Structure formats: C-alpha cells, structure tokens
C-alpha cells in the first residue's frame, strides 16, 4: 500500500511498453500542460460551455455595432433582468436533462405557480411569504405527479410533460379568464425585478463571494497536495480565482454606475434579481458537485442500470429531478411575473420553455443525459437573453426573433450531438 511511491512516475524504472504509467500521474505539470490537456478535451468533443462563451462574445460585438443603445448601462442592466427568469428555468431543467429526460411543461408550470401566488395575494389578501410558499407547493405537487408518471408508470417524459403543457394552460385560462390577467404588484416580490441592491452592499457581497471561492479552492488544492491526490497546477487554480474575481467584481462595478436618464433619480446597483440567480447557481453547483444526490443524478443519467445495481433508487432520483425542476420553474415564474407585473393565461407558454431548454443546451448540458453543469445554464441563459434583447433593439419584426432563436437552439443541439459523437470516438 505504498501510495507515496506513485508520486514519482516510473520511480522503479520498471516500465513496460504498453502500460507506461505507474499508478497514475499525480502531477499535471504546468499551466501550459493543463491548457494542452484542455485543448485535447475540446478537440475530443468535450467542449463544455466554450461554444456558449464564444457565442456570447460574438453576439455582444455584433449588437454593439448594430445598435447604439445596446451597450448602454441601462440596457445591459435590463438584459440581466430579462435573463434572470430564463437562467433560473434553465437551471431547473439541468437535473432533468442530466437524466436524459425533458420537461416541456416547466415554463407553464412555473407560471401556474406564479398565478397561484398572484391569486393568493390579490383575491385572498395573503402576504407575499404565504403566497410564495403556496406557489412552491403548487410546483412541488405538479413535479411529483409528472415524476411519478414518468418514473413509476414509465411514460416517456416528452409525452407526460407535453400533456401538462396543454393541461396547465387550460387551468390558467380557467382561473384567470379569457383575456384577463392577475396583477402582480406586491412590493417585495415586484421589487425583485425593479429595485437594485445598494452599491456598497453589492460590492461587499461580491467580494465575500470571491473570497469564499478563493478560500475553498485553495483549501481543496492544499488537501490534494498534502494527500498526494491528483490536482491541477497552482497557477490554474489562481487563474480560475482571478477570472471569477474579474467577472463578478467587474459586473458589480459596472452595475453600480448610475444608469438613469434622469439626473434627479439615479438608478444604480445590481438588480435584485441577480442575487436570486446567484444564490440558486451556488446552491445547484453545490448539490451537483458536492452531494451524494448530485452524484447519483449523473450516475442515473450515465447508466441507469449500473446505478440500479449500485443500490441507487433510480425511481426516486427520477421523480425528485422533476420535482426540483418544477420548483425551480415556479421561482422562475415568480421572477417573470415580477418583471412583467402581471400573469396572463399565456404566461410561460410560447417561447419561454424553448428559451430555457435552448439556454441549458447552448451552455453545454447534453440532451442525451449525464453531462452538464449549473453554470452552463447561466451562460446559455445570457446568450438567449442577448439575442432577444439585441434583436428587440434593432426593431426587427418578431418573426426574425423566433427564427433566430429556433436556429440557435437547433445549432446548440447539433453541437451537442456532434460533440457526443466525437467524445465516443475520442473516448474522453
């Protein structure tokens, strides 16, 4: 049991021709080596969110030239607020997509939950916390029913959720009425979309998040080094922390600038919605990478039979993924309602769900299951929001918006399918 000897590759000099590695190589040599390994992974089809980030850059450059207003502070803050509900919905779809399933009803289910909250507040005079809990309960119940139908009865999730997509639209029409809408004006909830965080608080919060990330990364690195585990080079760890700090602090500093057209009413600070998105991103990153439940989601998505033999309750994992998805969808529905100020029978229908699926897939979550991260959904959501926002500014006919978004979804799915083929060929 001499683990230490592994640290020195081929220390004994007894190398065989084919199996040239003794134990395993603990050291990834350098930043350059790590970069080369990354390039090899990308070439092998494991692209992660790289296409989405490149796409985002291209879109940003394109729209900043095509429209004079796109790069204004006001519009970019607006973009973040628009991206919020899409990102949250996409985040909710990640566990379902990890299993290789799909939830087509998530957008409508989210708005059904938001409608329940709206009705509780408007018609029954409940406070916003009660309404929020009520909405989440609606989401959990819908998710439970979908999950049981898929996992226990074995109906394809495509069919079950398509049925819910239609059925829940009917339910909303019944409760709201043709052509009507439910006001969504309760301040604490509405403020999520309107109000901003105090600039100082925003900056401190961002600094705390960066510091916590840095601390955790360095602690993990130290454990890996002291216990002789496989670890990335220190320079890569520092680079990650640096990128994270630049992105997060840069975003906050940018949002802290006054973006009001009226000098008497300054608008500054990070939109409150961003805090909700951030918190959910951290939560899901934790669940997917650090908990047993997250590991089992990947396992069931990778090979359900292997997971079953390993003693994982596959039915329970499947059901819970749909519950998680619709619960997240309800949060997304509440954010959307806060953004628009009302819920109409059509809320959550139409493009909402396709945007979210597109966001998750563009970000690098595979439609085939077993692959994807929480951050992918956020990056993908930003891409989708940039397209809708930018095209809206260009005063294009709405048909162009639909065609472009549909095209982007198709493109992302193609990238997913092609990279999957390359992965199986390259064996990454």
């Amino acid at each position, binding site marked *: 049991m001499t683990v230490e000897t592994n640290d020195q590759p081929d220390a004994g000099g007894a190398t065989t021709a084919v199996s040239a590695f*003794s134990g395993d190589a603990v050291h990834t040599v350098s930043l350059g080596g790590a970069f080369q390994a990354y390039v090899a992974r990308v070439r092998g089809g494991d692209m992660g969110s790289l296409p989405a980030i490149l796409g985002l850059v291209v879109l940003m450059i394109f729209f900043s030239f095509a429209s004079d207003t796109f790069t204004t502070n006001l519009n970019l803050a607006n973009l973040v607020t628009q991206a919020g509900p899409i990102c949250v919905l996409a985040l909710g779809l990640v566990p379902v997509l990890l299993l290789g399933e799909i939830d087509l009803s998530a957008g409508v289910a989210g708005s059904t939950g938001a409608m329940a909250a709206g009705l509780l507040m408007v018609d029954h005079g409940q406070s916003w916390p009660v309404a929020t809990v009520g909405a989440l309960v609606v989401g959990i119940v819908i998710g439970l029913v979908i999950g049981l139908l898929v996992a226990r009865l074995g109906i394809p999730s495509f069919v079950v959720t398509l049925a819910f997509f239609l059925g829940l639209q009917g339910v909303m029409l019944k409760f709201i009425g043709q052509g009507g809408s439910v006001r969504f004006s309760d301040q604490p909830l509405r403020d999520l979309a309107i109000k901003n965080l105090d600039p100082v608080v925003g900056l401190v919060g961002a600094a705390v998040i960066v510091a916590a990330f840095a601390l955790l990364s360095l602690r993990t690195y130290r454990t890996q080094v002291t216990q002789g585990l*496989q670890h990335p080079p220190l320079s890569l760890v520092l680079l990650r922390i640096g990128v994270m700090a630049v992105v997060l602090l840069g975003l906050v500093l940018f949002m802290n600038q006054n973006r009001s057209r009226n000098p008497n009413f300054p608008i500054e600070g990070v939109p409150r919605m961003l805090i909700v998105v951030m918190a959910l991103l951290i939560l899901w990153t934790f669940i997917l990478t650090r908990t047993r439940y997250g590991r089992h989601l*990947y396992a069931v998505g990778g090979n359900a039979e292997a997971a079953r033999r390993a003693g994982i309750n596959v039915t329970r994992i499947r059901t819970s993924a749909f519950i998680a998805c619709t619960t997240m969808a309800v949060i997304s529905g509440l954010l959307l309602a806060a953004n628009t100020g009302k819920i109409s029978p059509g809320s959550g229908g139409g493009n909402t769900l396709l945007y979210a699926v597109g966001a998750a897939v563009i970000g690098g979550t595979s439609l085939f299951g*077993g692959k994807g991260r929480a951050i992918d959904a956020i990056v993908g959501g930003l891409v989708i929001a940039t397209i809708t926002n930018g095209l809206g500014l260009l005063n294009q006919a709405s048909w162009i918006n639909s065609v472009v978004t549909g095209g982007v979804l198709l493109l992302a799915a193609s990238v997913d399918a092609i990279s999957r083929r390359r992965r199986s060929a390259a064996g990454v």
Partner: protein
Amino acid sequence: MSQPLLELRGINKSFGVVHVLHDVDFAVYPGQVTALVGDNGAGKSTLVKIIAGIYGRDTGDYYFDGQPVEVHGPRDVAALGVEVVYQDLALCDNLDIVQNMFLGREQLRRGTLDEPDMESRARETLTSLSVRTVNSVRQTVASLSGGQRQTVAIAKAVLWNSKIVLLDEPTAALGVAQTRQVLDLVRRLADRGLGVVLISHNMTDVFEVADRITALYLGRVAADVPAKDLTHGQVVELITAGRSGELGISENPATASV
C-alpha cells in the same frame, strides 16, 4: 484441502417446468481460482445468480465459512463479502474511475462528498492490485480500454474487502494484451487469499489461471476436479458430452428417464 469459503450443496432450481439445476454442489476455496465452465444453457448464469442472491433456490443449502446462512437477496450476499462482476460491467461512462468505484457507497464527511478519502482509497486499491495501466484515477471511464474497464470493475469489487469475487466472462471482449492484464489480475486476487470464481468459455484462459475446474452439463455437475488433473480435451468433452473417460456423469441425462 482447506475448508471451502463458500459452498452450495444439492441446489435445485426450476423455472416453471424447466428444471435448470439438478442437485448441484459447488465450492469456492480461499486463495484459489475456481473455473466454472459449461456450454450455453448448462446453468452457469443461473448458478451465479443464485450465489449472488438474485434468484432464490428451490432446494439446497448455502454455506459460508462452514456455517449455513440464509440468503434472501443481493444485499445479504454483498454483506457476506461476495461481489459479482457481470459481463456488462455496470460502469457509468460519464463518471471517473473514483466515482465509479464508490458508486452507491459514496463516502461523506459532514454531509458532503469526501473526495480526498475516496480518491486515496481508490488509488490504494488499484496500487495493491498492481494496476499499472491506468493513466489517472480521475479520467472518465469512457476514455478507458476494455481491459482497463474490466480492471476498474474488478477493483470496485475488491475495494470493499470482499472475500469472494465472481467474474462473468471477464475476457470475452478483450484483445490479447488486455486478456493478459486481466488474467494476471485474477491470479493476484487469488494470491491475496480471495476466493475467485471465473466463468469462461475460453479453455486457454481457464487452464492459465484456474486451480479447480467445475464443469456443468445440462444443469448437473459433470466434474469438480483440480485443473492439473485435467487436459484441455477432457474439459471440452465434459462440456459437450458431460463425460470424459472415468470422469463425468455416468448416465447421459438427456436420454435418461426422469
């Protein structure tokens, strides 16, 4: 000879009207590789599944370490320290080696996954099995060759201090060099004192590593003898005809009156 680690006596098993196993006796000795051979339909898989606790048995006794034990399911068997590596390996391609080895039995520390501990233990197990072919314990299983996958599946079975490992056709889909690696590993398992059961169609593999050979013929044990007392041709006769000279079933069960 030492006492068998696992012993089945007088096992009978029927599926409906089909009588699959007739009074089968089977023993696994510590530190020995027992090869279970037989033609398709001879009852090898059924016997393995009875040992694994997946199938119940109609009659017969299950002894572990000389003590009769009640086995009601795969969990009971796993608790005894018996692990089965099935032909399809049951690995998740999208997870890495460590994640696969601990699948379903992840170690936790304060509610979160204890990655350092799992990685150390996985590496320790692979090292103790002298596995030198794996580049990194953090590479995904999708990137491994067939032999390496088999190695990971076997290491996963050994990780839990198991006493007996059953390997179902471990070399069936492998090339020459990879078969070599897996057979070496099988031998090392036995040298560590584990009881190893090797189910195989390949006589070369069987004679290479097996200490004992148990041949099944139409649901009956045709022979259970040390490998050195048998020749290649005799085993083939036992598999195809159920008898070979003095050895084997005295009466052809196919034509015998039932």
